[in-house]
């Protein structure tokens, strides 16, 4: 098969994101990851929620399912459970995944279906003109807010950890290479992978801007020192090799997750493939699940007659033998 180029993963659909939007970096990183991994276009499906990020699938030339606000995870899980051969990527905004969809975020963690999930985290509801999202901190006042935020923020990394995600990472939309590599790791991970993508909203988030991430207004420094640092560079390894490591690593991850402001960690905090995926759990009961998942089963023959036999079930309910 001919090699697929980066351009093959792009559509010609007009992109209407604001100039300078962090979404562009994420879009590029997804396309680069797919291209570097040479994932056949028809085998990949991007599922998205609602909002600016929800439009992402339309710009990627693979199957694209733009779902409902907050519901991207159950849609994506349904498809992956029915056909584990598909390479499914779920994307959505922070309001989508951690506000209206927070119940599904937790529910998905318990299942550990084998999909990567990227949250485009910009602290605002962009498409509805800049209201506070669940990741905006208490008392912060972004451009569109009438009064400072009266809600406290949710900690996505910690929430993912306690919900049971088996891969937890963070990246930054303007570090496309780091993001692309993180997405590739999330795709290859066996189980549910969460990538928290920090992403400035140039239109509505006037606090955590690109310049802010670059180090502007950082106290005690004359030169710009980026606030973001890479945890791998400090020798941290998030991979769990043995269940006994989990507790120790958990406290370290919680520590990372509460770092914010002058130092913001990115990288792979946690990867635990010792936890069985949902698919492996299904295969415990249906042992040919991977060979014959629901999508591969023939339910009727050439004459359209059902292939299923119900006689044994009826036998159990039969009155006389």
């Amino acid at each position, binding site marked *: 098969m001919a090699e697929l180029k980066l351009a093959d993963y792009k559509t010609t659909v007009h992109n209407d994101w604001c100039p300078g939007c962090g979404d562009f970096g994420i879009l590029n990183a997804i396309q680069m990851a797919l291209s570097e991994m040479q994932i056949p276009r028809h085998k990949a499906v991007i599922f998205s929620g609602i909002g600016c990020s929800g439009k992402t699938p339309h710009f990627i030339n693979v199957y694209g399912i733009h*779902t409902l606000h907050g*519901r991207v995870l159950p849609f994506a899980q349904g498809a992956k*459970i029915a056909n584990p051969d598909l390479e499914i990527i779920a994307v959505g905004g922070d309001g989508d995944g951690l506000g209206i969809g927070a119940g599904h975020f937790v529910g998905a963690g318990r299942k550990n279906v084998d999909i990567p999930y990227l949250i485009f985290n910009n602290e605002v509801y962009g498409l509805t003109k800049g209201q506070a999202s669940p990741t905006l901190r208490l008392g912060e006042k972004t451009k569109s807010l009438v009064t400072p935020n009266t809600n406290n923020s949710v900690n996505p990394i910690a929430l993912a950890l306690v919900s049971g995600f088996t891969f937890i990472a963070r990246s930054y939309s303007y570090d496309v290479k780091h993001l692309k590599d993180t997405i590739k790791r999330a795709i290859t991970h066996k189980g549910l992978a969460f990538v928290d993508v920090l992403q400035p909203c140039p239109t509505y988030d006037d606090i955590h801007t690109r310049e802010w991430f670059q180090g502007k207004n950082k106290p005690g420094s004359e030169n710009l020192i980026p606030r973001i640092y890479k945890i791998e560079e400090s020798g941290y390894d998030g991979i769990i090799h043995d269940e006994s490591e989990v507790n120790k690593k958990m406290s370290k991850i919680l520590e990372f997750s509460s770092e914010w402001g002058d130092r913001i960690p990115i990288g792979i905090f946690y990867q635990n493939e010792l936890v069985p995926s949902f698919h492996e759990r299904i295969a415990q009961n249906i042992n040919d699940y991977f060979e014959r998942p*629901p999508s591969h089963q023939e339910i009727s023959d050439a004459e359209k007659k059902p292939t299923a*036999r119900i006689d044994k079930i009826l036998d159990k309910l039969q009155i006389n033998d």
Partner: protein
Amino acid sequence: MSFSDNANSISWLIGGPQGSGVDSAANIFAKTCAKEGFHIFGKREFYSNIKGEHSYFTIRISEKPVNSHLEDVNMLVSFDAETVFRHADKVSPNGVIIYDSSLAETVLDEVPTIDFEANKRIGKLLQDSGLSQKLNGMLDLARSRGCTVYGLPYYEMIEAVGRNLDDPKLSKLSRVVNVMAISASLSLLGIKKDMLISAIKDVFGSKPKLLSSNIEAAEYAYSYINTKFDAKNIKCKITPNAVLKDYVLISGSQAAAIGKILGGCRLQTYYPITPASDESEFLESNQIINQVDGKRGSIIVVQTEDEIAAITMAIGAALTGVRTATATSGPGFSLMAEALGWAGMNEVPLVVTMYQRAGPSTGLPTRHEQGDLLFTINAGHGDFPKIVLASGDIEEAFYDSIKVFNFAELYQLPVIHLLDKAISSSIQTSKRFSNELKIERGRFKRDIDKDPSPGTAGHFRRFKLEDSPISTRVPLGTENAIFWNTGDEHTEEGHISEDPENRNKMMDKRMKKLELALEKIAEDDKAACYNFDSNTKNVVISWGSTKGAILEALERLTEEGSKLGFIQVRLLHPFPTGTIKKFLNNARLIIDVEMNYSSQLGSLVQQYTGREIDFKIVKYNGRPMSTTEIYIALKAILSGNNERRIVLDGGT
């Protein structure tokens, strides 16, 4: 006025605290009678509670097929006081009551699970009759009507069984009291003990210890009746029927589940809710599927975090080409409304099996109602196509479970299969299902050539605008057919479009499917008529689970010289206006029968056909309609009662 049962049939009731084995006892009893050749119809009633509150099971046994219950009970079987207090006044004059003789002095106020309202009602009944507020008072009242009462010293009987089994753990053994009660009743009815033992083996066969204690208890109670009482003169007695060959004893939820398996459903999602969960649990316990080609199939049942996840996960799975369903009840269906619209917008075949219970809100969560018809057909914002089909009984539930998948795929839209608790939780003897139905997948393809004339963005046109509103559908993962879906209005390729011209074309495409469905769906699936010809002047119209009770009431009225036709509307959306108009063309009198407050079908009939409903018979107390009360209400209407709306209130 009452409705006495036919000669060779009886109406039997067992009650007891929830968790005491009322259900399993009733099932053993039903199976025993079925083995003896009787047709069975059984109805479950229980509180939203796990242990202790009153539950009961009514079973009709008849030489003819039965599909409804009656108000009167011929034999009341109990092992607690509450059952007698609550039901003894429903026992017919020649009926029988079996009770625990040690409880005869129990005072009404001492039964804590009898709620205040019921306590007041029963207390007043006893007071008005000049009787004591004790269980004995209730029994005296029954005796005064001509009932025979049989007191059983259950405790002593259990002690004796313990001695026979050489098992001193009586507290554990006391669990067999339910089987003793039914055994006593079968002995009185003259049903052969062998059948009972065989039914007990069917139920406890895999648990040897339970099997032996239950058999011993059954044997003991059976002969206890024979030695202590002379049952020869009891008036409710039945004689065995010919053997029911190739019959099953099955509940509505089991029938629907088996229909799904045969119909090719290979993934079902659900969130626990009464009365829908039974179906999902039955599917899961039959998840490995035998196939005619010798291969093995399977159905995955996924329990989700809520009903929104249940429906959206089902849609995601359906996009991979799998026949997928979710099952729920009113509160869960309310949560599914938004996603239903997404499935309509993206032309996804999806089945929602909707088991109604009494609303609104939590309502009467374990009780009956048909209150969700208008909500179901209107669920979701905006105009989008969906099909709503309602089954009238357990057998229909099976065949319709296959048909709804065909509709979903033929027309590429969500289909709601409307059932209710009266179908799902009831049991019935039914001829083994045979299937001549085919699997119709419509324009579904797994392989496709590259589109020679792709859409404006160069992609496959999943929503191609052509002569038919149905476009070629492929599963996710198909080569040459990459497409997009979005809840936004979209182009033929599935990309967002707010263009006004495209909008009209796409709305027209989707909504035209309803016209196509009305044109193609068989007349029998739109509405069934019974006792009906073109000269029928008086017509009963209804839908869903009231079918059995209506048919039997009409049969009785016909015998009495009053013929009424019955139209059972099955396709509720799109509404089969032409079919219904044709049926109502010569009708002089239209009587709408429904288990809801507002006569929801009646309003649809008026809206679509312009025909006024002359009489409305409704019920909304959470208990299903009995043949008795429908018969009485129809009789009143025929004899000139001019109440336009009759509210039925039967049931305990």
